[in-house]
């Protein structure tokens, strides 16, 4: 049982990266960006292929961030310059990415068995603890950078764009650019999440991104329920905590024998549905 929880925590920390990406596109920019289902796999595929070819894991992860950002850029340009609805723009990019991901991996599943990844257990503390440690270090660096970024002029403009586009234009900032930038940033982080997960599980798979948006959404919403805050730094932290809680819930439910891993996505969808619907019922009771 202890092992299951430690495993859940390690997954929670690593998947938090994806939820951080979603936070930027969904919460900050107010866009429902399905690109991430493709850019998550893209990140995993790119990283796995590069490591497979002998590139160092850190460089491979950096490459994942860049290609993820490019995917976000494509969606951003489709949405802003060609006025395609953000949902459709994301779906178009995601669909195209499926083929690109297959090309990158050259097969549907690319195994990293017996190849060194970022998750080498150099401290000899066990697979899960070292994954948690490395995951926390990487996530902490990303949160710190994001926190600093959202204190800058462009960071504020990004926040204002999701809130009030007209105002940002009146201030002389191009909202097309802020949206593209936000989508690049978000998908870069999602791809980094894909790279981490591919290394963690030891393979990248063409379908690893399916349903990832709802998984990230679950983490985001659970985090918001647990820590109610309007401060960026705390919001970012709450996402990590939400992601860990989400994994622990899933691990417990899977323990119940009644459910199998096949029910994983149904459970995820149910968690998000409950989290979204519950506040309505609570409000009604107060009235």
């Amino acid at each position: 049982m202890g092992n299951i929880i430690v495993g859940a925590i390690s997954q929670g920390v690593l998947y938090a990266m994806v939820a951080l990406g979603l936070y930027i596109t969904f919460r900050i920019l107010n866009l429902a960006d399905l690109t991430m289902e493709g850019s998550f796999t893209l990140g995993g595929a790119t990283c796995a292929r590069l490591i497979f070819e002998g590139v160092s894991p850190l460089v491979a992860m950096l490459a994942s961030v860049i290609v993820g950002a490019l995917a976000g850029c494509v969606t951003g340009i489709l949405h802003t310059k060609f006025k395609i609805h953000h949902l459709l723009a994301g779906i178009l990019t995601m669909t195209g990415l499926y083929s690109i991901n297959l090309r990158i991996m050259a097969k549907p599943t690319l195994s990293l068995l017996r190849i060194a990844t970022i998750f080498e257990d150099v401290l000899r503390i066990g697979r899960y603890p070292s994954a948690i440690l490395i995951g926390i270090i990487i996530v902490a660096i990303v949160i710190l950078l994001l926190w600093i970024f959202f204190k800058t002029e462009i960071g504020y403009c990004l926040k204002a764009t999701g809130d009030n586009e007209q105002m940002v234009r009146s201030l002389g900032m191009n909202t097309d650019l802020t949206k593209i930038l936000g989508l690049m940033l978000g998908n870069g982080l999602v791809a980094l999440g894909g790279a981490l997960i591919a290394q963690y599980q030891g393979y990248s798979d063409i379908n690893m991104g399916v349903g990832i948006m709802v998984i990230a959404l679950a983490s985001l919403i659970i985090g918001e329920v647990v820590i109610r805050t309007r401060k960026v730094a705390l919001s970012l932290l709450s996402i990590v905590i939400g992601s860990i809680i989400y994994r622990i819930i899933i691990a417990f439910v899977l323990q119940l024998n009644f459910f199998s891993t096949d029910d994983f996505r149904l459970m995820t969808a149910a968690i998000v549905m409950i989290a979204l619907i519950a506040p309505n019922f609570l409000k009604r009771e107060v009235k």
Partner: protein
Amino acid sequence: MLKINNLTKIFDSGGVNEKIALENVKLELEQGDFVTVIGGNGAGKSTLLNVIAGVDEYQPNNGTVFIDKEEVNKKNENQRAKYIGRVFQDPLKGTSGSMTILENLALAKRRGKKFGLAFITHKKEKDDVIKRLKILGLGLENRINVDVRLLSGGQRQALTLLMATIKKPSLLLLDEHTAALDPKTANKVLEITDKIVKKENITTLMVTHNMKDALKYGNRLIMMHEGKIILDIHEEEKKNLEVKDLLALFEESSGSHLDNDRMLLG
């Protein structure tokens, strides 16, 4: 400051719903002019402001707009922000609700500047922001760290006005900026407007549907009808005018009755 030559804007040109919103409009404003703009629905008041501001769908079919003697036709809305401060009818449009008063004003101070990776350091700006907020006389200077979404419509509109002018614009555009407020609050916001515009000597175009306000404020009044400026009344002449004179002038110049109740009641 502002010069407009032969401005024509036709919506759906050549289509079934063709509408001439502006027809050969000429207008020249001197530095410090505070011009009130009145006219019935569809007279072209808001279209005029949108064309001047460079809003995407409002590219003129003909004519040129000069601000500070510079032709701005090719510049889009965000490029023109350098010259223009703007307040809309909707109090939600001018401010970011999820940011604090201080954050909103800190952004507004950078209007027209290139936004980069420099930090928004509030400390440096705090004193100036507080000083400016005091001008509004709404006590907002004590609430600078409050999220703007918690403010009332009138407070938000006053804040938007301050945001539009905190970095002095070459031209201030006010598009019925008090229309969504209750009469008392509207008057308060108008008085603040008057105070700021006079103090900073800002060239201003203020669209209003209220004839009394149009006469009370500003040093010049223009009336629009069917896309044209049909009346242009300056200083002394304007001072001696009353609402009934304005109505008579309107009927004389347009050859029609004013059928807009909202304007008569104002």
